[in-house]
């Protein structure tokens, strides 16, 4: 005889979803209304009205979803009473699924609506301070041009960091007694550079080197001071990334290569590094993103990068919209890269699972 365990309970969740979506509509109406009442500017008032309408429409959609979830839940109950347990299970599962979607959507609509209302508050003061279209447009060209400096600093530092980081990593793993002093130096350097904040290194180099009157070094341009500082700091991080990659290659690979007659250095060069570097591409890219963002630190030594340029506009207009432009440019540049890193990681994981 078949004895089926009952379908999961769906009605409580579905009714909660209905309740939540009703609550959402209520909040949109009251919060939207209150904020709108505080607005004097007629143009903004119209915008606010439209926002409420759009949000209410979204809320209605969520309510519809919750309602459908409720219908499915009731159907599941009917099917249970008709002793059609398998059908009841599938209805209940669908009902719960829709209820959870309704919860998620409610949360998203509410968050976005609240954020927009915050911008509208106080006659749109927040929006005017940070996102004034006119000022953003005026500063955009200069800021974008200055951003080329950030890109230049980032690209040159990244290339240097790739090479120096690798040298440091290999030095840190130098074998045997002869390698001891080399290992010690590498460890000391890496520890030091990871301990000192990047901005301090930048400050010391940018203001210190010119005072030293050293040949060549003292007369470099601020751009190069920035590159040196970023390279010094980030090569320490990258060395650690390389090292973790090298260490994660199984010792049997060393045995295999050495047993064929390859030397230590040849083994590293032909078998260990090629595998290790493939493994560390995602963390390397993540570090590069951090480096790109840290190029904005160079404003402390007076390099005219995007941030510094934006600060001129900000201080002359008493408004931060130009700085928002910098933030937006960084976002536009960085997000594709982070997505790419995630994609690489997901692909690497998939390969590992086979």
């Amino acid at each position: 005889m078949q004895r089926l365990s009952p379908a999961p309970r769906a009605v409580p969740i579905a009714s909660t979803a209905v309740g939540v979506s009703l609550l959402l509509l209520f909040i949109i109406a009251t919060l939207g209304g209150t904020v709108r009442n505080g607005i004097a500017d007629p143009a903004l008032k119209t915008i606010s009205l439209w926002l409420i309408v759009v949000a209410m429409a979204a809320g209605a959609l969520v309510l519809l979803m919750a309602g459908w979830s409720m219908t499915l839940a009731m159907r599941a109950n009917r099917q249970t009473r008709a002793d059609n347990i398998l059908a009841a299970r599938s209805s209940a599962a669908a009902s719960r699924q829709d209820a959870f979607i309704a919860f998620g959507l409610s949360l998203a609509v509410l968050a976005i609506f609240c954020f927009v209302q915050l911008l509208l508050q106080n006659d749109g003061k927040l929006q005017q301070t940070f996102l004034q279209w006119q000022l953003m447009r005026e500063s955009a060209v200069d800021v974008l041009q200055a951003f080329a400096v950030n890109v230049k600093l980032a690209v040159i530092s990244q290339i240097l960091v790739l090479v120096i980081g690798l040298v440091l990593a290999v030095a840190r793993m130098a074998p045997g007694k002869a390698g001891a002093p080399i290992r010690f130096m590498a460890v000391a350097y890496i520890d030091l550079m990871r301990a000192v904040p990047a901005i301090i290194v930048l400050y010391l180099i940018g203001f210190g080197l010119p005072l030293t009157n050293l040949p060549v070094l003292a007369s470099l341009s601020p751009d190069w001071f920035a590159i040196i500082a970023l390279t010094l700091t980030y090569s320490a991080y990258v060395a650690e990334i390389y090292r973790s990659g090298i260490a994660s290659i199984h010792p049997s690979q060393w045995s295999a290569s050495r047993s064929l007659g390859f030397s230590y250095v040849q083994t590293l060069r032909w078998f260990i590094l090629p595998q290790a570097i493939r493994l560390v591409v995602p963390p390397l890219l993540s570090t590069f993103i951090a480096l790109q963002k840290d190029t904005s630190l160079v404003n402390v030594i007076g390099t005219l990068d995007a941030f510094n340029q934006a600060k001129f506009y900000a201080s002359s207009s008493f408004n931060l919209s130009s700085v928002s432009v910098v933030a937006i440019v960084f976002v536009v540049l960085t997000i594709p890269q982070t997505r790419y890193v995630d994609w690489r990681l997901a692909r690497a994981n998939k390969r590992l699972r086979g």
Partner: protein
Amino acid sequence: MAFIEIEDLQKSYGEHEVLKGISLNVDRHQVVTLIGASGSGKSTLLRCLNALDTINNGQIRVDGDVVSGPGVDLNRLRRKVGMVFQSFNLFPHLSVEENIVTGPIKLLHHSREKARARAAELLERVNLGHRAKYYPDQLSGGQQQRVAIVRAIAMEPEALLLDEITSALDPELVAEVLNILRDLAKEGMTMILATHEMQFAKEVSNLVVFLEQGRLLEAGPPAQIFGSPTQERTRAFLKQIIDAGRL
């Protein structure tokens, strides 16, 4: 003079004495099988012969030349004495062909064409001619192990050390690997192998060596060791194996 001479070889990992004075001579074209319980030191002995581990005491000579102790060109020794591992250890980022030709090209300075032709020939011999462009993770265990053997042979070693090279394989794949060893033995390759394949040891080896807790307890032709072992421990070990249905 034997080709490989091991004299009072001692090896410890820290406090733990693994090899407690092993002496053994292996002539050219001989096949020597190491048998013994797990942990008796078979792998360690092979690794010492390939200088993958340093020894604490004693001496190893290959072809009359002392190859243990300081100041030895280990890379040259290893080109003379190749090694194949239980876990294959192919290079996963290289294709089958690249796995095989990298050594001859970089270390023996063969031309790429010559190395590839030789690799193709060797692969053909182990029935893997059509797999040259594959990557290790696209091959079965038995195929990977055959590639690993070819990789070692491509370096033209004068002797091969084989450490339980069939233990990681499913039973139906063991035969294809053992067949290659059989061929190599016929061609006169000097081999020292650690194995649990007693039937195979009986059939191909000239000398069977029984290790017990880091000591060479008994050595002799297979008929003697498997037929009438003199040592009580050897008898007990073989009985265990026969009881397990493996001989």
